[in-house]
C-alpha cells in the first residue's frame, strides 16, 4: 500500500538554520493499516506526512504507493492517491466557495478537469446524503459558503472531502488539535467510522497519547527524525500511556518533556 524507504529530508541545508527533519524513515504499511504517530515537537511526525503528500521534494529515499515510486511527483499529482486533513481547519477547505462546490472539487481529485460543469445535479443529491451522515445539519446549507462554518464543521467537511474519492492513503495531521475536546472527540469518532467503513489505509499524527492508543491498529513513535518504536495488534491494544512514556525514555535516552503530551496524558478520547 504505502512504503517509505530510508526517506531523508534536511531543511535549510548548509545554513545556520539547518534542520535534519527526517533521518532515514522507513516503514511499510499494509492495506487497511491505521497508524497513529506520536512524538515530541520536531520529531518528524508532520514532516513524514508532508513527505508522503509531496509538499516538497525529499532529499533521498523512496515513497512507494501501490507499487509505484511517487517521490518524483509534485504535490498536485500525488493528490490522486492521497486524502488529507490538516491541523488548521482553515487549510482544508475553500472558504469563499459553497459547501457543495468544495465537495465537487474533492470529487474530482485525481481526475483531469475540463469545461463541463463544475458540479452536476446528480452530485447535489449524493452530497446531500453524505452530509446527512455527518449529522451536523450541513445537508440543509449546501449553498452556504464554507467560511461561515465552525472549525469542527470545517474539519468534518474536510474529512468527508478527503475520502469522497477513496484515497489509497488518508493523512490526518493533528486534525483535532485545534478543536475543543468535545468537538475533537466527535471528529475522531467520525474519522474512525469513515476509515472502517471504507477500509482505508491511514496515518494520523496526534499529540494525545491515549487517543493514539485507542485509535488505529498500529502505533509508531518518532524522535529526531527516526521511527523509534513501532507496535501493532494485541501488543498495541495493551499499551498504556505510562508504558509509552517509559518506552520513549528507553528508546531516546531522555524524558518526554513535551507539555502538550503530558497535559493530554489523562485526557481520555
Amino acid at each position, binding site marked *: 500500500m504505502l512504503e517509505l524507504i530510508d526517506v531523508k529530508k534536511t531543511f535549510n541545508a548548509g545554513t545556520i538554520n539547518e534542520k535534519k527533519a527526517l533521518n532515514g524513515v522507513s516503514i511499510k504499511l499494509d492495506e487497511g493499516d491505521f497508524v497513529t504517530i506520536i512524538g515530541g515537537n520536531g520529531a518528524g511526525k508532520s514532516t513524514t506526512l508532508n513527505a508522503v503528500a509531496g509538499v516538497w521534494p525529499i532529499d533521498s529515499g523512496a515513497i512507494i504507493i501501490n507499487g509505484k515510486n511517487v517521490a518524483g511527483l509534485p504535490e*498536485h499529482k500525488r493528490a490522486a492517491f492521497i486524502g488529507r486533513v490538516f491541523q488548521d481547519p482553515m487549510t*482544508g*477547505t*475553500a472558504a469563499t*466557495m459553497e459547501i457543495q462546490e468544495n465537495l465537487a*472539487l474533492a470529487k474530482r481529485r485525481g481526475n483531469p478537469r*475540463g*469545461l463541463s460543469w*463544475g458540479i452536476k445535479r446528480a452530485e447535489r443529491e449524493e452530497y446531500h446524503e453524505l452530509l446527512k451522515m455527518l449529522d451536523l445539519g450541513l445537508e440543509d446549507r449546501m449553498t452556504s459558503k464554507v467560511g461561515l462554518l465552525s472549525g469542527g464543521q470545517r474539519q468534518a467537511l474536510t474529512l468527508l*472531502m478527503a475520502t469522497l474519492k477513496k484515497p489509497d492513503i488518508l493523512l490526518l495531521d493533528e486534525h483535532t488539535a485545534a478543536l475543543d475536546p468535545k468537538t475533537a472527540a466527535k471528529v475522531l469518532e467520525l474519522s474512525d467510522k469513515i476509515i472502517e467503513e471504507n477500509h482505508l489505509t491511514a496515518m494520523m499524527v496526534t499529540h494525545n497519547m491515549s487517543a493514539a492508543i485507542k485509535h488505529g491498529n498500529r502505533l509508531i513513535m518518532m524522535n529526531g527524525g527516526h521511527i523509534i518504536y513501532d507496535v501493532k495488534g494485541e501488543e498495541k491494544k495493551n499499551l498504556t500511556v505510562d508504558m509509552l512514556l517509559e518506552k520513549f525514555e528507553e528508546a531516546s535516552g531522555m524524558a518526554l518533556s513535551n507539555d502538550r503530551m503530558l497535559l493530554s496524558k489523562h485526557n481520555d478520547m
Partner: protein
Amino acid sequence: MNLLAILQSELTQFGNALPGVISQGLIWGIMAIGVYITYKILDFPDLTVDGSIGTGGAVALMLILNGVPVWIALIAAFAAGCLAGLVTGLLNTLLGIPGILAGILTQIALYSVNLAILGSANKSISVDKFPLLLSSRRVAVSGGFAVFGWEVGKCVLIVAVLTAVLYWFFGTEYGFTIRATGCNSNMARAQGINTKKSTVIALVLSNGLVGLSGGLLAQYQGFADVNMGRGAIVIGLAAVIIGEVLGSAIMGKRFNFVARLAFTATGGIIYYLVLQIVMQIGLDSTYNKLFSAIVVVIFLAVPYIRNAAKTSYGRAAKNAASRAIGKGDSEDA
C-alpha cells in the same frame, strides 16, 4: 433666474455627455472585469494591465489601419492581452518572481512593445475611413437617439456576452480550479489542482479581456497612445470596488457571481459619471489621475473605517471606563 439658467445649461451639458459616459464606462468596465478576475478571484495584484490595455489598443488599431476586419482585430487584441498575461504568469510561477513585481516588469516591457507596434508615440484612426465598431463621434446626442442609442447598446451587448461567457467558465470544472487556487492554494493542491497552471490561465484570461477593452477603447477614442494604459489599474480597481460596494448594498445576500460582474461593469460607468460631474464643476483634466487615486482610496477606506469605528480600542477604553464607574466594586456580586 440667472441661477436657473446656469443650472439648466449644466444639466443639458450633463445630459449630452451621458451616452459618452456610459459607453466609455462600459469599455473600462470590460477592463475592470479583467481586473476582477485577478484581484478578486485569483487574489493576485496584477499590474500587467497598465501595459496590456495599450497593447490591445495598439494591435487593434494597427490591424484596422492595415485593412483587417474589425472583429479579427479585436480577437487579435484579446490574444495580445493573453500573451501579456502569459508572460506575467510565467515570470511568477516558473521564475518565482513575486506577483506584483512580475506585473510591473511585464508592464514596463510592454511600453517598448506598444511603441514598436504603433511605430510612434500615438496613432489616430478616422471613423470616416474605417468601419470602426465603436466611435465617440457617433455618441453625440445631436446625432439622434437611433445613432447614439445603438452605440451604447453595442457596449451593453458586449458586456452582457462577456458576463455570460465568464459565468459559464467559472462554473466549469476548470473555473472551479481557478476559484479554489485564489481562495486557498494549499487546499487546491491537496485536491489535485496544479495551482501554477490555474494562476497562469487566470492571468491570461484577465489580460485578454483587458487587451480587448484596449482594442475597443482605441476605436472609441479614435487613437492609440503609448500612455493610454497609464493608471489603468487604478480605474479598474475603482470600478471593481465601486461595483462591490454598490452591489452588496443593493443585492445583499443575493449578490451572486453574475451580479458581481454586472456591477463591476456598472462601477466603470459610475466612475466616469462622477468624473464627468467633477469636471463639469471645474476640475482641470490635469487632475484626472489624482482624482481616480482619491476615488479608490475613499472606496477602500470607507468600509475599513466603518468597521474600525464599530470595534476600536478607543471605544473599548470608553466602555471599560463607563463600566468601572457604573458598577464599581459590585462587579463580582
